């Protein structure tokens, strides 16, 4: 199952589907990094609203995505983590430290726009 990546101005939006395998996640990671370079995007939003389980692998992949994209000079924000998923994540000790988070797509865009302004 491939994750669709949408280009919205300077921002790329990747929307997760419910049942992503490790291979899908790895594929997403490379696709995102490639596209950030190709479109000279300034921000990436990863929307995980549909994810009903976020285990250590998914969590680590999200961190790697954020770090790799930062190396390309862009910002990443993870949006849409469900309350129950967040609770399970912290029980597992997965806190996505160093990665920006926001409630939903709208908040994520607001966060990035804010960032763009202050770093112009």
């Amino acid at each position, binding site marked *: 199952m491939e994750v669709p990546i949408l280009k919205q101005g300077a921002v790329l939006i990747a929307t997760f589907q419910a049942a992503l395998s490790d291979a899908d996640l790895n594929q997403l990671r490379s696709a995102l990094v490639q596209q950030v370079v190709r479109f000279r995007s300034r921000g990436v939003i990863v929307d995980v609203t549909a994810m009903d389980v976020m285990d250590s692998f998914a969590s680590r992949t999200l961190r790697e995505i954020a770090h790799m994209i930062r190396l390309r000079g862009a910002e990443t924000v993870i949006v849409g983590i469900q309350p129950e998923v967040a609770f399970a994540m912290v*029980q597992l*000790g997965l806190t996505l430290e160093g990665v920006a988070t926001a409630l939903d797509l709208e908040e994520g865009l607001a966060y990035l726009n804010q960032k763009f302004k202050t770093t112009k």
Partner: protein
Amino acid sequence: MTISSDQDIVLARQKGRSLALELGFSSGDATLIATAISELARNIVSYAIKGEVALKGIQGSNRVGILVIASDNGPGIPDIRQALRDGFSTSGSLGLGLPGVRRLMDEFEIVSKPGQGTTIGVKKWRP
């Protein structure tokens, strides 16, 4: 069910979630259970390549629960105590697998012999 690929991990946790909901767990608890199954199945794929995950509803005195058994014939865990300590990992993962799973569930049992494999049984009771 047999676990031998990352697709199986997704399948196992989906089955775990629906069984948990069938047993009357809240969706919050079902998420915790599905996450624990995901971690256990992942350990099988990354350390033993192939193994089994069994899911079962259980009846305690006065309460209902779910039992998850993950077993493999992989290399086994040489030092279980160390593996249960936060921050330990041998495959470069986050190293939070087992202690995390233990926190997600109510009961945790592990049997492992180097060279012969690992069996982990975890239970969660409906509050």
